[in-house]
């Protein structure tokens, strides 16, 4: 009863202080019309108990942000995109993390799952998940980006950030360093590559050079504090920091140590960049520096002139985002955005910049500069060098156009 009284008192205090705040705001603004939606808010359900505790939480029923599923004649070999334009901060909720599958999401019982490590090793091993859990673990925050992300922007620009840039996500990944397992099995002389293979129906596999394998790859079983979601590779996946998403083999069931690249379908016929001269670039692993403004972005509408907070995400497969610059005058001048700290290497980095819109048509664009000094190129620069025949590894500057009515669209559309 005492609690109840205190609660009522504090509720009444909150209401009165809100009234005071609104009143003073109105005085400061000096415009009565500005208060049209500033009437006193009354609790619509006084005395109504909420729901009890729940075993596994759900988001509010009022939240509607979802992944956008790409239409496909073969939906099991399909994709969904992260709603970047609704995101805060630098972590992508696991349930909203983009997907790219080649034969659907397998249903894997972790007690039945095995990882086989063999090939050019001294001591081939087969491991259960329980055994993998006993090995020393690390947690790191990294982005994963499909190398087809923004592929539409070469020639078929999408109307919003989810469509154009939604095949990237940022997570905390927990697992075992691959280098530890490789020293456990003993890599033989002459071994130059590893082949990772998934337990999806198509047993998707990729070749990865040994230098990367012993550098920073993680065999991950944790994502954002819980077990990896099935669509992200449950119970075990590779996280290959900074490299194209397709190399981060999900549902990992085999590592084979070999002397050369194994020329998998997904490193020859797919994920290679066809150049104007007819040659194709192969093993273009690193996802280069990139950024996108997620507000104001395509599909949003500004509610009249005034102050807004430009916000967006930047990342680089080569390390830290050093700075992000924003231009509101078609690239003639650039303003440095604030970066959310702490920044993590090879991770989504949130940038923000307050900006006043004067109500005129204007373009907004951002460019990422990473710790190597690499500057995100323009779309025109990319096309000049690489032509229009590849669908992969696009990292051109994204330009949003704000129309006089406040609506926002892809400037290239």
């Amino acid at each position, binding site marked *: 009863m005492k609690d109840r009284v205190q609660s009522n008192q504090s509720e009444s205090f909150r209401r009165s202080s809100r009234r005071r705040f609104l009143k003073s705001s109105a005085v400061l603004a000096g415009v009565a019309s500005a208060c049209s939606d500033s009437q006193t808010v009354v609790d619509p359900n006084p005395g109504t108990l909420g729901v009890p505790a729940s075993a596994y939480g759900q988001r509010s029923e009022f939240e509607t942000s979802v992944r956008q599923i790409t239409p496909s004649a073969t939906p099991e070999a399909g994709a969904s995109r992260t709603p970047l334009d609704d995101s805060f901060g630098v972590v992508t909720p696991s349930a909203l993390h983009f997907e790219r599958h080649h*034969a659907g999401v397998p249903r894997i019982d972790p007690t039945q799952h095995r990882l086989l490590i063999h090939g050019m090793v001294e001591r081939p091993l087969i491991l259960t998940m329980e055994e993998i859990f006993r090995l020393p673990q690390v947690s790191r925050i990294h982005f994963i980006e499909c190398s087809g992300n923004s592929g539409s922007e070469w020639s078929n620009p999408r109307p919003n950030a989810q469509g154009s840039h939604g095949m990237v996500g940022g997570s905390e990944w927990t697992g075992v360093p691959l280098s530890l397992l490789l020293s456990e099995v003993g890599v033989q002389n002459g071994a130059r590559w590893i*082949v990772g293979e998934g337990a999806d129906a198509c047993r998707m596999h990729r070749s990865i050079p040994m230098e990367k394998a012993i550098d920073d790859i993680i065999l991950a079983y944790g994502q954002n504090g819980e077990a990896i979601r099935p669509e992200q590779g449950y119970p075990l996946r590779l996280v290959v920091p900074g490299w194209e998403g397709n190399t981060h083999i999900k549902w990992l069931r*085999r590592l084979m140590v070999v002397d*050369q690249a194994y020329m998998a379908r997904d490193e020859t016929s797919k994920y290679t960049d066809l150049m104007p001269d007819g040659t*194709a670039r192969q093993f273009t692993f690193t996802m280069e*520096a990139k950024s996108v403004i997620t507000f104001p972005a395509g599909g949003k509408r500004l509610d009249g002139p005034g102050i807004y907070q430009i916000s967006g995400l930047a990342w680089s497969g080569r390390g830290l985002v050093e700075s992000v610059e924003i231009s509101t005058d078609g690239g003639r001048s650039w303003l440095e955005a604030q970066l959310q700290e702490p920044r993590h290497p090879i991770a989504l980095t949130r940038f923000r910049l307050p900006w006043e819109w004067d109500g005129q048509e204007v373009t907004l664009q951002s460019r990422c500069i990473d710790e190597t000094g690499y*500057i995100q190129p323009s779309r025109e620069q*990319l096309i000049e060098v690489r032509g229009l025949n590849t669908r992969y590894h696009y*990292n051109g500057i994204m330009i949003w156009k704000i129309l006089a009515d406040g609506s926002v669209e892809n400037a290239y559309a």
Partner: protein
Amino acid sequence: MPTRKAAAGFAGCVCVMVAATLLLWGQLPGYGVGRPPTLEEIESWDVIVGPEGKELPPGEGAVMAGREVFSLRCAECHGSEGQGADKGDALVGGEGTLTGTRPLKTVGSYWPYATTIWDYVNRAMPFDRPGTLTHDQVYAVVAFLLYLNGIIGEEEVMNAANLPLVTMPNRNGFVPDPRPDLGEMDRAP
């Protein structure tokens, strides 16, 4: 007295730390986790075939046998002659298109290794029932695809010995990643 107690405590701590370190070292590099796989287990994971084809299993398949398998298991998605359809990529044609404005990347015009076709058909096809073709059927389908693309003759039979010797038309079409190819220019002041 408190000083002596602290000193004793400190010495105790050091002893524990040294013991713990030795214990850790004793476990390195072997954590003793997992066990060696049996040969049967390794075989049950099936093969991953590299460009030299040394993992190719015994078996063989003729072009004509491949036409039959293809019509039953592949044509629904890829078209009866591999021309492509709603669900499946074109597998035939495209020669000479890679420098044009509408490049057609097929097994014939783009794929650099015949061994990759075998590996991919074996592991991932047919799309709705991957891994259900016999090794002989996989050889046959690969033979049929090579024939459709004019790479081998109609009477040929493919096997582990001759498949890696097939030279694909675009075998030398791939170059290593030269990036960063742009993006490192000095910023305007």
